[in-house]
């Protein structure tokens, strides 16, 4: 029971490392961007895990219900805005990849580096 309560943290660790692994070992730039998104999602999961309180509900006050227990609203606020910022930065990264492809004709970073060395 105690161990299952830590499962979220293990998934956080595994997802974070899957993202990091793909980020350093994949050559394809789009894959790198997706890896960054996985990495980022892992952090989101960590924050939202911390916000949960047993017997709690989503932090919305219902009229006429006394002594409600709420989950922590603060991590939720931080992650809510981070998700939208995340998509914007993903789009910016993708735009850079598209421009790189127009200049170099490839999106594999080892090929791009090789071309840079030749010139």
């Amino acid at each position: 029971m105690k161990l299952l309560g830590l499962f979220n943290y293990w998934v956080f660790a595994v997802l974070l490392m899957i993202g990091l692994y793909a980020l350093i070992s994949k050559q394809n730039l789009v894959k790198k961007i997706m890896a960054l998104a996985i990495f980022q999602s892992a952090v989101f999961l960590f924050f939202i895990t911390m916000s949960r309180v047993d017997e709690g509900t989503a932090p919305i006050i219902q009229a006429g219900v006394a002594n409600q227990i709420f989950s922590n609203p603060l991590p939720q606020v931080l992650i809510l805005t981070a998700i939208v910022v995340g998509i914007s930065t993903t789009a910016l990264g993708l735009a850079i990849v598209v421009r790189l492809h127009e200049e170099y004709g490839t999106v594999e970073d080892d090929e791009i580096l090789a071309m840079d060395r030749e010139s």
Partner: protein
Amino acid sequence: MTMLLIGVFLLSLLVITAIAIVRSEDLFSAVMLSGIFSLLMALNFFLLDAADVALTEAAVGAGVATVLLLAGLRLIPPKEAPGRPLRALSVTVIAATALLMIYASFGQPTLGDPLAPTQQHIAPWYIEKTPELIDIPNIVTAVLSSFRGYDTLGEVFVVLTAGIGVMFLLGGGRGKPFSRLDSQAEQGLSGHLIPKVMARLLIPFILLFALFIQFHGEYSPGGGFQAGAIFVAGIILYSLVRGEGLALSVIPPRALLLMSAGGALLFGSVGVAGMLMGGNFLEYSVLAENPVIGQHIGIIVIELGVGLTVTGVLLSIFHAFAARD
């Protein structure tokens, strides 16, 4: 207990999907898998009591992000270069770090522990004071737009900056209009009857739902960020089915620019208005005679600003990708 097991099941699916994303060499299937990943993530957030976050992740991650990645994929090779073998060094480092973090997790409070340090500081204050100071039911909205308005203002400007960056790179500003729109060729799926009819039925409701999320965000899960993303999803559906040209005649590029910049400006000027009326920057209490009413006015206006900026930026980004040859 049941909830815990459902959570474990969903989280396991999440890990499997993440591995599949990393392993698949076909970028198209990787993008589709990342849509599934986001949806699973949204379900997890919902299980963990974060209704607002789940709504955002479902709209942004599973909806808009997938479409943006697909639009980008159209411009680049769809396949990854043939795989290179696993690198022993990076696998070792990654595995060691993962094990270390799992080891460290044994010192963490378990899921839902009410005595965890996170639950002791400041959050109880927000929960206690929201009914008194702001008097809106959704505490997340209260914290987002009033207590921590500075954060939100900063994030709105980050979104705006990212949008400006994309338009610099791919075109779409006033000097560089979206390039492909002059062609008279039939665009989108307009030749296909079923998507067309379905979209015509769905789009009004999606847009209506976005407006509901926008203006009911104080009472139920929602707010400017989610509403913007859902609105954008509706318009993107329209442009997928009827072509970007028609979508841009509904909301022209100039209007998109005005929305992106105007939303951020609206947010900032509410802050300045607070200063002019004798309070601090982003202090809404001074906006009206009664401080609670002042908070309500401030929150509605800044949520509108957030919604406008998110809609404008995400739609501009979509059009910048979609109109590129």
